[in-house]
């Protein structure tokens, strides 16, 4: 029953006692609403139940209720019911937007200030599989990201969180696999989309005499500054990168050779590109000879092609070059 003012000597009817009992047990008479509504004084001690398909509001104004008055608010409709502070203030730790079957008690601390105590489900903003329960200035929902995204702190986001695709790091992408053939083999059109280039070469044989095997980034439009394993001088300049040491030539028929060349910052258009290279090959002594070279590709241009040459008057008869883009 709505809030009553009893008088001395008043005799309550059975119906009044039943209604009081219901109210005391958290129930009470219900005022059904189907459209937005502004609370009135007679709502004190009752249940205001909204049942609407669309969004509605219940507005709370001042000077209607006494301190200690309560109004239960329920939403049984599909539309969201929002408790709106009109001239009174309404404070809550939960949300004032009630989904279907959310409910709570509006408790008036003073005639102009009410607290809304939501029942447990009322403050959950979660609606969809994968939602995260977060907080902005109120309890809030963060919808699930796409596959493989990771949760990332972001102070500019409303909740301080967002789903983001992690930056690629430390990954290698095979750009090409090329079989060595002819007297020179060019690998062109190398993508500039990576940080470094890793070049693996192995199993080279050739039809000519034992000789040299060398690489020209951008086909000789560049020079190298290198420190070679068998060179006594600290700085040595040559056009190509010879994949052999200075003493022993590469055996033409043995496929037992393998090299790796890592060129850093290869797509940069301002600076030289440092490289490190190493490997081993069957030499003409015969024997297995190690080889290494360090230095820089002396060009300001991006490296977009690699050209391998064989000397000795023949052609490559076998050999594989794999080029990886590295981030």
């Amino acid at each position, binding site marked *: 029953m709505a809030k009553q003012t009893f008088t001395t000597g008043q005799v309550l009817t059975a119906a009044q006692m039943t209604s009081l009992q219901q109210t005391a047990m958290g129930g009470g008479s219900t005022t059904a609403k189907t459209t937005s509504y502004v609370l009135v004084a007679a709502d004190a001690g009752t249940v205001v139940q909204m049942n609407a398909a669309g969004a509605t509001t219940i507005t709370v104004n001042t000077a209607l209720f006494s301190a200690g008055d309560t109004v239960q608010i329920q939403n049984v409709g599909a539309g969201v019911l929002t408790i709106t502070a009109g001239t009174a203030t309404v404070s809550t730790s939960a949300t004032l937007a009630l989904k279907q079957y959310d409910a709570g008690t509006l408790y008036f601390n003073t005639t102009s200030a009410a607290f809304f105590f939501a029942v447990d489900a009322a403050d959950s903003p979660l609606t969809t599989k994968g939602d995260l329960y977060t907080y902005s200035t109120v309890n809030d929902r963060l919808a699930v990201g796409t596959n493989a995204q990771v949760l990332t702190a972001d102070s500019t986001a409303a909740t301080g969180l967002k789903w983001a695709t992690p930056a690629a790091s430390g990954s290698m992408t095979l*750009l*090409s696999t*090329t079989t*060595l*053939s*002819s*007297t*020179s*083999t*060019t*690998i*062109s*059109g*190398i*993508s500039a989309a990576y940080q470094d280039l890793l070049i693996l070469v192995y199993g080279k044989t050739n039809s000519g005499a034992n000789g*040299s095997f*060398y690489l020209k980034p951008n086909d*000789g439009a560049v020079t190298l500054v290198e420190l070679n394993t*068998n060179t006594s001088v600290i700085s040595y300049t*040559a*056009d*190509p990168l*010879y994949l052999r040491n*200075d*003493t022993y*030539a590469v055996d033409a028929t043995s496929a037992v050779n393998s090299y790796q060349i890592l060129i850093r910052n290869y797509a940069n258009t301002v600076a030289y590109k440092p490289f490190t290279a190493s490997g081993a090959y069957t030499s003409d002594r015969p024997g297995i000879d190690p080889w290494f070279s360090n230095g820089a590709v002396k060009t300001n241009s991006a490296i977009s092609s690699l050209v391998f*040459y064989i*000397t000795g008057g023949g*052609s490559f008869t076998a050999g594989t070059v794999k*080029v990886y883009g590295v981030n």
Partner: protein
Amino acid sequence: MANPMVTIHNTETNEIIEREMTAQEFAAYNAEENAEIARVAAIAKATTDKTALLAKLGITADEAKLLLS
């Protein structure tokens, strides 16, 4: 006599073509090869000369290093 062949693998299109070296490419290739032969020969000569000098002095390479240290 035909010039040596070159193979070009375009990684953007995955197209592979083979053709003869142009006269300019062949000249650059020969120049590089001759320079390499000369460079290797010079290194070999330096090694031979060093060995001969050590023999003339009657000392080993390690002894020569010790002398120069």
